[in-house]
């Protein structure tokens, strides 16, 4: 097997926003004392005058971004998912979402793969929180290629966008050549008809591995990459429901309120099928290396494989 290249999507963010900054002078990057960790330090180095440190004050940062957007700038507000979606939820809801301002909220360190920092920093609620805001685009790229494309698409999109990036290095599963990306479009990575694995973020690579393991057991799994959690690509999800009849959602997020619930509510209303949600059960995480924590909480290929096999075996 060839060596898999691994890149953390927070690095992709830092690189992409810096590249984009060269083309568009209206881009400003805001940070809350985490430029090193969010990788916007790269942007800061390239364009010191367009990087604004807000200090450890995320609520203020989001609203400063809102004010800047009304002056014609496109602010990229950067911090950890816990503080962007969690701490500043009401600021995002009332001062970005409600007036539908052109603010990009770029949240790194999403999910449990934050690892050693532990539960206080492992945000597994951001999809749920951000999905409830009318007009908010919610994205969760799966790898470096998609993350960079998502940043570009976010800039091109007029209106509020939330993007979650990860801390841990994850396999690059897309080929940059010929890659196309559009907000709201899911991607079928593998065809199959017995079950569909609908995944987002770092769980997409795990779902691909699971599909291979399932194939060895004679189960033909479709793999769908959902980068845009909202608006959800209903067409692709409903086609999977009709054609595969069984769905397994895979996300590094609470099983409450995230991709799994979005897929379950859509299919419950429009095409009822059996759905299994692989994600963080209703519990808090804890410290440990990312890989170990992901495995412990069931966010890995083996777990997806078992869930899918069980579902397929059900009558």
């Amino acid at each position: 097997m060839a060596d898999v290249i691994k890149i953390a999507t927070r690095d992709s963010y830092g690189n992409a926003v810096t590249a984009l900054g060269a083309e568009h002078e209206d881009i400003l990057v805001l940070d809350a004392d985490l430029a090193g960790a969010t990788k916007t330090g790269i942007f800061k180095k390239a364009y010191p005058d367009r990087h604004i440190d807000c200090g450890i004050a995320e609520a203020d940062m989001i609203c400063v971004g809102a004010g800047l957007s009304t002056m014609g700038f496109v602010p990229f507000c950067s911090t950890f998912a816990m503080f962007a979606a969690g701490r500043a939820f009401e600021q995002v809801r009332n001062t970005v979402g409600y007036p539908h301002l052109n603010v990009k909220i770029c949240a790194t360190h999403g999910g449990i793969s934050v690892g050693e920092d532990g539960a206080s920093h492992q945000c597994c609620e951001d999809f749920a929180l951000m999905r409830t805001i009318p007009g908010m685009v919610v994205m969760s790229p799966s790898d470096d290629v998609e993350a960079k494309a998502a940043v570009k698409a976010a800039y091109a999109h007029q209106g509020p966008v939330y993007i979650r990036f990860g801390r841990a290095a994850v396999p690059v599963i897309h080929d940059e050549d010929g890659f196309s990306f559009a907000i709201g479009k899911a991607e079928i990575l593998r065809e199959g008809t017995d079950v569909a694995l609908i995944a987002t973020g770092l769980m997409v690579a795990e779902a691909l591995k699971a599909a291979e393991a399932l194939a060895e057991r004679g189960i033909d799994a479709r793999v769908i990459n959902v980068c845009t959690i909202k608006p959800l690509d209903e067409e692709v999800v409903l086609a999977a429901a009709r054609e595969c009849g069984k769905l397994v959602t895979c996300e590094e997020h609470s099983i409450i309120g995230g991709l799994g619930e979005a897929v379950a509510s859509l299919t419950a209303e429009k095409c009822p099928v059996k759905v299994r949600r692989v994600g963080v059960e209703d519990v808090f995480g804890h410290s440990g290396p990312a890989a170990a924590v992901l495995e412990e909480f069931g966010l890995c290929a083996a777990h997806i494989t078992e869930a899918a096999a069980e579902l397929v075996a059900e009558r």
Partner: protein
Amino acid sequence: MTREEKKWLRIAACRVRQGVIEATHSAKSGHPGGSLSAADVLTYLYFRRMRIDPAEPRWEDRDRFVLSKGHAAPGLYSTLANRGFFPVEELKTLRRVGSRLQGHPNMNLTPGVDMSTGSLGQGVSTAVGMALGAKKKGSGVRVYALLGDGEIQEGQVWEAMMFSAHYKLDNLVVIVDNNNLQIDGAITEVMSPYPIDKKLEAFGFFVQNVDGHDFDALEAAFDAAEAEKGRPSAIVMKTVKGKGVSFMENQAGWHGKAPNDEQYQAAMDELAAALQKVEAE
């Protein structure tokens, strides 16, 4: 300011107050107390200070105003209507289904509203963002934010203050409507924010204390604020909640309550008499 100019402002302020009573009475809810305490500064800003054009509410180079104490929306709406941004008659639609005049300001619905506000503590941060944006663009846009004295209990306000001083936003004026009352009573009893001026000074502001109902004092303060370079300005206005309607003055109960028919009539009579008196001067 000439005597005639001041008279014109006093007349406008009377009309703004009438609009507040008209709107809240029609809506049967809303916040008259803090709208009336802010009526004079709103009038001063929109009728004399700010570079604005009611015919072009989104003119790029206009000065910006953020009503951080968003519940004083009737005060802002009445000011905008009397200044010609939309018909005064529309004030009666306040809080109605389909109205452009929401319970709290909505920048996408109401001509002249520069920022959607209502959740306390957030507006001032957006004003800070606007001021920073104006600086980055090298424009001469000035930004005004009006906060309640209860509102400054919100921690985010102080994040915004720290930011403004750090980035030397001398194109920003933060105005505190110090009417001393909030919903549950006197601010000193609920959660004292005093000394407001000293706190702001400690945060790096050029601070002035003024009588918020004295147009000469307001003009002198805003002139001094504009002349101050290298740091943001704050104007702490001593005001009377419910100012201009005697039975509402200094009563916390009038924070978020609309006048009934009888109270409406009494208030309108009092404001009409005040208007007549100023006009006769």
